[in-house]
C-alpha cells in the first residue's frame, strides 16, 4: 500500500485534478493531455519505472473521445501505472512523449496507423499497415468493420530487396531468409564482412488480431485467437488474456486450474527453449546438435499433446479455468518424460559446448552491455543474459508460481553464450517447477462456468513467456472486449539488436538476431524502439519499388 500511495502522491503533485483509482496492483489515473509529458517524466525517470506499452482506444461511443493509455510498470513493487488521456474526436492530436520515454515510439505510431491519433512534437511515419494502404482508413476505429477490404493496388510484385544506389553494401536478411522462419526484413550495412548499421522493417505478419478480438469474436473465442498470436508461446498469450479478463471481472478461478496453467506454461517453456537451442546450433552449422535437440524436444511435444490435446496452440484455456484435467497416469508419464529429457539434455549440451566452432562463435559475439540493456529495458533471457535480474514469474507472481521455488539464472557477459546458458539453465528450472507443481497439484474443479463480466472494467496482465514478458491490456465490453491490446516480448528486444549487431562479423548476424529468440508473429502487434543514446534512429524503411 505504501508504494501505491507514493504513486498517487506523485501524480497528484503534478496534476492535482487527476482522477485516480486503484484496483488490485494497478493505479489508474485520468489526466489532462497538457500534463501528460510532465507525468511521464515523473513516473518514468523520477520513480524509475519502465515503460510497458501504450494503447489507443476509440471511446467515442462511451464518452465521445479517443483515449490513449500509457502503461508503466514497477517490478520491484509489482505495480502497473496506467495514465489515460483523452483526445478530441474531430481532430485527435496528443503530445508525444517519445523524447522523454523513447520506448513509446512505435506504439504511438501504431495508434496513429490504426486509430488516426496524431502526435505532436515528433516525426511521424507509416509503421504497421502496408505502404499501399489507404491513408484515411483506420482499422481500429469502431465504425470501421473488421472485414473492410480496400481495393489496394500493389504497385508491383517486384520488390527492391536492396538499394543499389545507397552508400555501402546493403545485405538484406529477409523477408524470406533461411535464418528467420518468419518474414521480417533486416537490412545490414556491411563494410567487408563487418556490420556497420542495421535497419529493420517488420509487420509482415500483421493479421488484425486486436480488431477481430474487439469486433467479431466473443470473450471465450478470443482465447483461441490469443493463442494464435504465436505458435510457440501461444499459451502464454492465452493465459495472459484470460487472466486480464478474470482480473477485470474479479473472477477467482479454481486452484487446480491455476496449477494446470502453470504446468502447461512450463512445458511450453521447455519445448520453446529446446527449439531455440536447436535452431541456434543449426545456425552455427552443427546440424547433429539441431537434430538431437529436436529429438529430445519430441518427447516434450508428446506430453504437451497428452496434457492438452494438441502439440501446439493447446486450446485448453478459457476464461474461468481450463478444459482438460491431468490424471494420475498422465502425471506419471510427465515425470517419466522429464527424467529422460533431463538426462539426455545434459549429455547433449555437454557435447555441444565441446564442439570447437560452437564455443568460438558463441563466446564474445553479439554483446549487449548491461547499461544498454537497462536503457532499452529488454526482457526475458536477453535481459538475464546481460545481468538484469528480471522475471515476472517471481516479481509479479501469477497462476501457481507463488507455490514453487525456482532460481532466476542471470549471466553478466551479455554475449550470445550468456543468452545460450540462461536458456539452458531455465530448462532445468522448468523441469524442477513442473515436478513441484505436479507434487502439490490440489484436488477440485478445473473450471467455473457461472460468472459475468461487467462492462467498462480495465486490467493489465503480465505473463513471463519464454522470450520475456507478454502484456495484455483489456477494457471489457458487451459480450466481447471493448479494447484488447497485446504487447509481446520481442518488441522490447528488437531495438537491442542494433547494439548487438554493430561491429560484428556478418557471419554472426543470423545467430545474434536469433539470440533474442525473436517471435515476429507476436511482435507484429506493437513495436517499441528506444533510440536513447544513439545518434541514428531506427527508421523502418519502406520498400523501394522498382
Amino acid at each position: 500500500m505504501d508504494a501505491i500511495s507514493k504513486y498517487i502522491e506523485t501524480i497528484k503533485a503534478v496534476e492535482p485534478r487527476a482522477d485516480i483509482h486503484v484496483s488490485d496492483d494497478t493505479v489508474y489515473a485520468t489526466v489532462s493531455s497538457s500534463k501528460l509529458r510532465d507525468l511521464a517524466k515523473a513516473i518514468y525517470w523520477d520513480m524509475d519505472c519502465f515503460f510497458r506499452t501504450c494503447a489507443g482506444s476509440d471511446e467515442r461511443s462511451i464518452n465521445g473521445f479517443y483515449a490513449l493509455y500509457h502503461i508503466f510498470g514497477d517490478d520491484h513493487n509489482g505495480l502497473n501505472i496506467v495514465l489515460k488521456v483523452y483526445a478530441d474526436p474531430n481532430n485527435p492530436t496528443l503530445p508525444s512523449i517519445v523524447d522523454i520515454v523513447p520506448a513509446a515510439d512505435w506504439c504511438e505510431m501504431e495508434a496513429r496507423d490504426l486509430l488516426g491519433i496524431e502526435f505532436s512534437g515528433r516525426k511521424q511515419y507509416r509503421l504497421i499497415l502496408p505502404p499501399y494502404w489507404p491513408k484515411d482508413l483506420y482499422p481500429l476505429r469502431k465504425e470501421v468493420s473488421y472485414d473492410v477490404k480496400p481495393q489496394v493496388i500493389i504497385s508491383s510484385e517486384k520488390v527492391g530487396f536492396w538499394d543499389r544506389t545507397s552508400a555501402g553494401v546493403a545485405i538484406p536478411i529477409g523477408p524470406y531468409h533461411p535464418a528467420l522462419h518468419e518474414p521480417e526484413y533486416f537490412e545490414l550495412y556491411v563494410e567487408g564482412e563487418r556490420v556497420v548499421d542495421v535497419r529493420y522493417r517488420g509487420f509482415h505478419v500483421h493479421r488484425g488480431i486486436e480488431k477481430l478480438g474487439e469486433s467479431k469474436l466473443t470473450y471465450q473465442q478470443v482465447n483461441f485467437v490469443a493463442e494464435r498470436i504465436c505458435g510457440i508461446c501461444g499459451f502464454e498469450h492465452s493465459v495472459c488474456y484470460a487472466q486480464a479478463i478474470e482480473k477485470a471481472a474479479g473472477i477467482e478461478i479454481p486452484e487446480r486450474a491455476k496449477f494446470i496453467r502453470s504446468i502447461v506454461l512450463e512445458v511450453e517453456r521447455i519445448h520453446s527453449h529446446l527449439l531455440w537451442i536447436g535452431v541456434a546450433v543449426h545456425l552455427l552449422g552443427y546440424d547433429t546438435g539441431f537434430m538431437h535437440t529436436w529429438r529430445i524436444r519430441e518427447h516434450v511435444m508428446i506430453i504437451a499433446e497428452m496434457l492438452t490435446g494438441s502439440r501446439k496452440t493447446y486450446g485448453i484455456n478459457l476464461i474461468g479455468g481450463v478444459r482438460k484435467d491431468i490424471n494420475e497416469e498422465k502425471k506419471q508419464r510427465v515425470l517419466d518424460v522429464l527424467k529422460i529429457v533431463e538426462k539426455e539434455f545434459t549429455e547433449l549440451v555437454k557435447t555441444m559446448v565441446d564442439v570447437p566452432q560452437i564455443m568460438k562463435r558463441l563466446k564474445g559475439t553479439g554483446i549487449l552491455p548491461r547499461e544498454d540493456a537497462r536503457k532499452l529495458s529488454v526482457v526475458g533471457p536477453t535481459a538475464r543474459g546481460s545481468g538484469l535480474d528480471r522475471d515476472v514469474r517471481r516479481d509479479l507472481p501469477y497462476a501457481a508460481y507463488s507455490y514453487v521455488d525456482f532460481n532466476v539464472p542471470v549471466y553478466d557477459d551479455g554475449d550470445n553464450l550468456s543468452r545460450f546458458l540462461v536458456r539452458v539453465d531455465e530448462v532445468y528450472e522448468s523441469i524442477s517447477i513442473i515436478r513441484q507443481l505436479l507434487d502439490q497439484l490440489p484436488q477440485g474443479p478445473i473450471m467455473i462456468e457461472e460468472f459475468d463480466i461487467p462492462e467498462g472494467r480495465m486490467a493489465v496482465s503480465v505473463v513471463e513467456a519464454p522470450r520475456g514478458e507478454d502484456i495484455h491490456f483489456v477494457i471489457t465490453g458487451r459480450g466481447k472486449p471493448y479494447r484488447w491490446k497485446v504487447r509481446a516480448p520481442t518488441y522490447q528486444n528488437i531495438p537491442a539488436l542494433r547494439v548487438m549487431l554493430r561491429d560484428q562479423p556478418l557471419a554472426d548476424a543470423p545467430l545474434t538476431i536469433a539470440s533474442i529468440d525473436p517471435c515476429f508473429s507476436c511482435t507484429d502487434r506493437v513495436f517499441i524502439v528506444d533510440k536513447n543514446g544513439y545518434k541514428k534512429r531506427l527508421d523502418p524503411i519502406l520498400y523501394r519499388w522498382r
Partner: protein
Amino acid sequence: MGKPKFLGKSIWVFHLNTGSCNGCDIEVLDVLTPYHDAERFGVKLVVSPRHADAALLTGPITLESLPKVLRAIEAMPRPRIIIALGSCACGGNIWHSSYSVIGGVPELLKILKERGIEVDGVYYVPGCPVRPESIVYAVGLIKGLVPKKIKPKVKKVGR
C-alpha cells in the same frame, strides 16, 4: 512439357511464412528431424526460390507479404507446385475476413491467375497447427504413396 519423371523422387521446398503464427513453421522444421525425417522421401528445404519445386505457404497471406509471395512464386522454375499448409493457408483460419489478410491460398490463386503466373498443382494440408504426420502424409500424397482419404460429403437429411 512432359510429365517430369523425377519430381516425385525429389521435392525441394521453399518455405514462405505469409503471416503464420509460427506453429506450422516449427512443425515444418520438426518434420525434418529424426522422428519424422521427411528427407527419406527426398524432401529438402532450400533457401532460394530458384532452386525450389514447391512453395510451402503457411499463413493467411497478409497484404504486406503478398508482393513477396508473388515474386517468389514467379522466381521458381516450372514445374512448380504450391502447398498450402495449415488452416491459415487453406482457408484463412480465424482471420479469414480480417482487413490485413487476403485469406489463404484460394484467394492467392485468383491473384496469380490475374497476373498470369501459372502453377502446376496445389495441395491443401489442413491442421492448426499441422501435425508433422500430416505433412508426411501430404508428401506421401504428392508422391502417390498413399491414397487420398478425405472426400467431400453432402448429406441431405429430413425429419
